[in-house]
């Protein structure tokens, strides 16, 4: 029924859509098309092999991640459910693969949108976009969390410090339930790597370009309102988060969006903040796993009996 309603809504929008053939590719169509069909952006831009490679990697890693695991609903961090048992290795690998596939797809969506927008720069609507286009490459995005100019910004370091203080305080004062079993060292190490490296990197260079670099820019152009664009991209960002993370997802979506507006479309400060907040969050998750097995960690909270993996 939901699919039917969505289809009807889409049809109504489509029928109301005035457009004509374009001399240059419509960047908006490239971006949205790629978002729903992996490889479409590269195909439309005339790079079929690149499109196939991207689609193969994105779909292969995302759906490969469902192999051998329990599958739940789709979220921004994949669909794999991690069981409350010692068999964590393959679910964590599955979740990491999905994380990579999904965020690589987000990144590519922005990339093809960005390139099409650069090609179409001489068209009137591209010139009149209210949010400037972010021109950086994947290397710039990867380096952003380690750039002093980003870290020293008043928008970034207070957020990281406040997030760290809050997360550590919450960790220290929340009882951790002890597992009734031992997680293998390999699974524990992989979990730590996933939480402190895979999620922060892929999250920052996948989600920020998509939501703040693409969706917010498009919505700003369509609605003409910075507030509406901020709200729409944040709502979309929230919707794809698991239900327990939706409140923080919405607030962070708003904050990162405001930050991007403040820096005239430059998403690098938001990438830096997003990355370090995720690293701290990952560290806490890793400590929680260790603590749940009776190990000592900094800021060690009290332990009680019984069990769930803190995902």
């Amino acid at each position, binding site marked *: 029924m*939901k*699919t039917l309603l*969505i*289809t009807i*809504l*889409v*049809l109504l*929008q*489509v*029928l*109301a*859509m*005035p*457009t*004509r*053939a*374009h*001399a*240059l*590719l*419509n*960047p*908006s*169509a490239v971006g*949205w098309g790629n*978002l*729903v*069909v992996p*490889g*479409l952006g590269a*195909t*439309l831009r*005339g790079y*079929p092999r690149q*499109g*196939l490679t991207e*689609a193969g990697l994105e*779909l*292969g890693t995302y*759906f490969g991640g*469902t*192999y*051998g*695991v329990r*599958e*739940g*609903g*789709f979220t921004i961090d994949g669909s794999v459910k991690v069981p409350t048992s010692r068999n964590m290795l393959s679910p964590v690998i599955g979740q990491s693969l999905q994380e990579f596939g999904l965020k690589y797809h987000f990144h590519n969506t922005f990339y093809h949108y960005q390139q099409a927008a650069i090609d179409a720069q001489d*068209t*009137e*609507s591209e010139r009149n976009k209210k949010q400037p286009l972010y021109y950086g490459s994947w290397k710039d995005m990867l380096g952003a969390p380690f750039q002093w100019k980003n870290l020293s910004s008043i928008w970034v370091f207070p957020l990281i410090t406040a997030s760290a203080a809050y997360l550590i305080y919450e960790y220290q004062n929340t009882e951790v339930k002890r597992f009734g079993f031992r997680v293998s060292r390999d699974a524990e190490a992989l979990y730590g790597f996933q939480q402190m490296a895979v999620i922060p990197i892929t999250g920052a260079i996948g989600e920020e370009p998509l939501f703040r670099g693409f*969706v917010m820019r*498009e*919505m700003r*152009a*369509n609605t003409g309102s910075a507030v509406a664009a901020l709200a*729409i991209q944040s709502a*979309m960002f929230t*919707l*794809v988060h698991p239900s327990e993370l939706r409140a923080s997802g919405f607030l962070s979506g708003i904050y990162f969006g405001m930050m991007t507006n403040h820096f005239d479309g430059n998403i690098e400060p938001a990438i830096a903040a997003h990355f370090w907040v995720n690293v701290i969050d990952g560290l806490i998750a890793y400590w929680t796993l260790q603590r749940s097995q009776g190990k000592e960690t900094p800021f060690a909270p009290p332990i009680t009996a019984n069990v769930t993996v803190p995902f």
Partner: protein
Amino acid sequence: MIAARFFGLAVLLACLSFSAHADDAVPPPEPNAKQSSRDFQWQIVEFFNSERCDLVRDAAKPSSYSLLRPNILAIVAFCEPRGQDHEKLFREAEKRDPTGDLIMVLHAKYVWKRSKEKARPLWENVLKHARNTYLKSMAKRYLEGEVEKDEILHLSPWSYQGKFRLGGGYESNPVFPYAGNPGGGKRPQSYGTFKANGGVQRWVSFGSYAANYEGSYVRYSKSPELSMFGNQLEVPITFRLGAYEDIVFRPFAGLSYAGSRSFEQKMGFGILGVAYRPEYKQSVQGSIFTNNLFFPEFNAEEGTHLRFDYNWEFFPSRWTYRFQAFMEHLRAVNDFDNGTDIKHSHTDLGGLFGLQLMGQGITYEFDFSASFRLDSLPSEYTGRQSGVRLRKRRNDVTIDAKPGVTIPLWRDFDLNAFYEYTRTFSPLRQDDYTDYNMEDHAIELVLLTEFSNY
């Protein structure tokens, strides 16, 4: 369902977003000249439809050619205005709309009247790039040498077309879709089949919108309970994004019956991107749909499907060959809602290689496909013969080979004959919950015809 919601929301925002880019379009010519008016240009089409090229020549003045829409300019060029370089006019129209169906067809017909050999690359271009399937068929007929005298083209912003197939054949192991090997052995038998495709399409400035229906019926002689009546309706809306790129929104729904009982219902939508290039055509499609299976023995296979298709078609001379690759993931609802021991969520990967050779009047075809199905989780069950508890993951490989030949009979009637071999290899055998190792041979003879308002 969050996947569907996200997919839908993304598409919705996309639709809203495209509209904001309408201004990116190439600015149209100044509309104030009388000769550029919509009525005037439609008048040209009316003259052309009435086979009055003389009136077209009189009506369109050379000074106003730059104001004409590319299609109309091609009509004027086709009507050979005096003192004008017709090829130059076609080139101008093609420059402004390089993949316009009508421009390509009119140009090919114009050259064909003078030299069939010189028209060949132009017809091949129509075969490669035309969006209208009837015009593609027309190009094929001209290329195959079936056309003696140039056919008249009737133009309309509406086009409708239909295809009918009536045939009969013999199959060695007919089974329901989703079924494994039937208990009690194979029942080879003959069958009759009828298939109808019909569509109506409205061509508009941004592309087109259409409604297409496909109905099929197959009836087996010894097992009437396997007879299947399938219906599918799609409402594609095509947007021309660039000179060589289209994007198509394809909502679709289908309902099929086995005998007098409902068998399957599906509903969803796809987004298709097509890029036309000089050497090939590439299309990429993503679709999401849900299906319901009404037979209790199959309904564990229902759920939400996410499917991605990648296709290439190459057109070197008389050859056409194509590659397809797909990936489909099924999230079977019963795996999660009922916690059953037999799992059905799976991911399929597959590819197809197709070859078509146009000889003198005869078309030879060969398709080969292979697909791999891997269940997400192993299933646990008690062996049907051994009675012991088993744990296996279904991972099937299916291959399909289909050679065929199509022979033109008379006007738009063709005769098609093909043989199809399908073989599935599966680790699930007789002792397991279903035996999916299957082999099927089918041979069929079909009478085909098509019509259109062109």
